[in-house]
């Protein structure tokens, strides 16, 4: 059913994005834990996230989550809707289209507000 077909690439991407998101989740729990230690620790670390390279990684993270969500819906449809398997091809394209249509505006809105020349690590007073 899968090997060499469109579904296989979605399946591989689903696993890769899943592992990536879990990795970020660990990092994100650790950084949020610093809030409990006080403003100094949290604000100093979180200012790393304001740097331009992290803003690009942030957009990639949102893309990974959106892809994982769109493809997850496809998997659930295939599992619980008996006739879905007849529409595999359409579901494949629907997944990709839904992903692109959600990611592009999100990426646009996120990148629009980035100050690309801000490389300062100082938290503003």
């Amino acid at each position, binding site marked *: 059913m899968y090997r060499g077909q469109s579904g296989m690439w979605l399946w591989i991407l689903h696993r890769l994005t899943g592992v990536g998101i*879990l990795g970020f989740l660990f990092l994100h729990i650790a950084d949020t834990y610093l809030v*409990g230690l*006080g*403003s100094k620790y*949290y*604000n100093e670390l*979180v200012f790393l996230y304001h740097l331009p390279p992290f*803003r690009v990684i942030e957009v990639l993270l949102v893309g990974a*989550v959106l892809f994982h969500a769109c493809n997850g819906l496809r998997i659930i449809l295939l599992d619980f809707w008996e*006739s879905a398997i007849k529409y595999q091809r359409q579901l494949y394209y629907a997944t990709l289209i839904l992903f692109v249509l959600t990611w592009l505006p999100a990426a646009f809105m996120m990148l629009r507000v980035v100050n690309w020349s801000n490389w300062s690590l100082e938290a503003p007073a």
Partner: protein
Amino acid sequence: MAVEVQNKPGSKTRYSSKGARPKPTNQFELYSWYFFRVSGILLIPFALGHLAIMHIINNVDVINYNFIADRWASPLWRTYDLILLFLALLHGLNGARVLIYDYVPPRGWRVFALSTLYVVGLFFMLIGAQVIITFQPVLAAK
């Protein structure tokens, strides 16, 4: 492309006669299979809502200690974050568990990888829950 689904007796793949993909037969794996899908559905509003609030409506330029302190002044947001923490972590750990079964066949290494995963997972679950539940803002702080 329409796919004819066959269900030959003795065939290794167990498609149902109605054409759905195979479900696990083992009891624990069946529960895990359902949990994977139910948590996935729930994560769509919770995780995407979190991303929309933190990265589009707000953004990382305005997220700092005071932002979190304001947000967690409401028990509603603490509850939201706690639900998201548990859903996302359990969904992710379940995924990692499946990957270990798929990619770590030697028994010893598999037990080692699974044990590490559970210890690390429990650790992050505890520190995440602890900070969400017990956080007390220091108001004078910048």
